[in-house]
């Protein structure tokens, strides 16, 4: 009995020590909701765009999300955070969209097109009138923003900006006027390659395994 108790205490201490000091666990922050990204993001204003959702583990899964954090006054950075299954599942359909924004003390976690934070903000650009339509143009210092945000050829209009504001007021996710962003958005598809968004095969079919084995070993 004593030996069993000793073994259990050893097992518990192993898990405890592993959680605290294991190099693979150190440095990756865990988030329960997208709001917790505020602990990872170092400056304001900033917008976090979901790039990828990943999973690790055989029997007990651990979920990871990769975000591109676009700062107003710093270089953008890619971060990986540990997350819960429900959050990974829920935010999967908003891939390529901004899931977290911070401006001063104000935090928003409503899924919006990437760069919504910087549109209609005179610190970063201005409206340009052309062919009876107002287009958003970033200043020269921020000319790399469209490619960082994954816009491609997309140029936001004033109407787009107004719709973003309307959705913020209604607290409803917005995937673009023509659903340009998100899991099925055509701009996101260009920005994030399909291979990143495809779910990895969970099981390798037995038929393929035997075929591969036969081809590798008995081809000649």
């Amino acid at each position, binding site marked *: 009995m004593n*030996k069993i108790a000793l*073994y259990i205490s*050893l*097992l518990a201490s*192993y898990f405890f*020590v*592993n959680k605290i*000091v*294991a*190099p*693979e666990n150190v440095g990756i922050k865990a988030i329960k909701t997208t709001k917790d990204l505020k602990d990872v993001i170092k400056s304001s204003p900033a917008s976090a765009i979901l790039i*990828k*959702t*990943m*999973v*690790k583990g*055989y029997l007990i899964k651990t*979920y*990871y999300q990769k975000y591109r954090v676009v700062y107003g006054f710093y270089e953008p950075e890619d971060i990986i955070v540990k997350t819960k299954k429900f959050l*990974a599942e829920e935010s*999967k359909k908003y891939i390529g969209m901004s899931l977290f924004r911070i401006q001063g003390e104000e935090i928003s976690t409503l899924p919006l097109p990437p760069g919504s934070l910087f549109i209609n903000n005179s610190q970063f650009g201005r409206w340009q009138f052309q062919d009876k339509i107002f287009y958003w143009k970033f200043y020269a210092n921020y000319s790399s923003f469209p490619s960082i945000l994954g816009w491609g050829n997309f140029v936001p209009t004033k109407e787009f900006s107004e719709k973003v504001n309307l959705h913020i007021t209604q607290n409803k996710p917005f995937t673009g006027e023509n659903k340009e962003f998100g899991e099925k958005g055509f701009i996101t598809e260009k920005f994030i390659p399909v*291979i*990143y*968004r*495809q*779910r*990895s095969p969970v099981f390798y079919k037995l038929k393929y395994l035997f075929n591969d084995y036969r081809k590798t070993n008995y081809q000649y």
Partner: protein
Amino acid sequence: MEEVLDIFLARFIFGLFICFIIYIYKYAHILFYPTGKRQVAKSFHVLSNSADTLHYLSRILGIVFILSQIQFDRFFSLSLNSLNILIISLSSIFFYLSSVWISDTVILGKYEYVDEILKKNNIAYALISLSKNVGIALIIQKIYLNSQNSIIIYLILWTFINFIFLVISKCYPFFSFFPFHKMVIKKNIGMALSYSGFITGNSLLFYYALNEPNIDVYSYLIRVSLKVFLCILFVPLFIWGIKILIPTKANQNQTDRTLYFDSERSLALGIYEGISYFSACILTSWIVYKINLSGVLTNY
């Protein structure tokens, strides 16, 4: 032909050089073991005392293991590399003898070399020394390989690993039916074999644990400790499994003290314990070091 002859001669000279280092080792040995002066003297005869021969040659075997890992690449001049080999060899001799001395003090501190080996010809004591010395040699060899030619890293690793090794060596009563100290006095070979299996198995696990890539000493030590910790958790499981598969009567009747005085039965039990522990260590090394389960991130 000249080139072949040149390389052959160079190897021959290195052979002589390493023999010279072993000759130095022979005398360095007296610094740590003044009582073992007799082993170095010309009067020492291998046939006179089998325990003494085993005890002394186990240390020679240990240093040979360590020296065999020193690498020579002729990138620089021959003299510079030879000096490098000399420094590494001398430091290895120092650290190896220090480790052996510390382990002797911790594990066999209750016994005197003169009493047990010279007077009593205690082969059990010598067998324990053999396994311990070879185990330490394997560990020091690995420490040398992972120290990146830095004496500071070497010192840190040496202190840390020696400490864990000694702590685990003292855990023998947790796994064996034999009372260690009583059996050493009684010159019980069964217990010596059991302890040899225990210590060699542990050394094997340490040897594998030190195989981790050493980029940063701090994280390396953490990874090594966690691997050792994992081994501590798996070894009992395998021992338990082996005990279920191959049960002994000793399992059911631990209080049977007559077992210790019956040399035939205790020898069998010692062999059983030693081999089962060693097998458990090999299986643990497979579970912990050969199965890589980390770092597989897939799209979700």
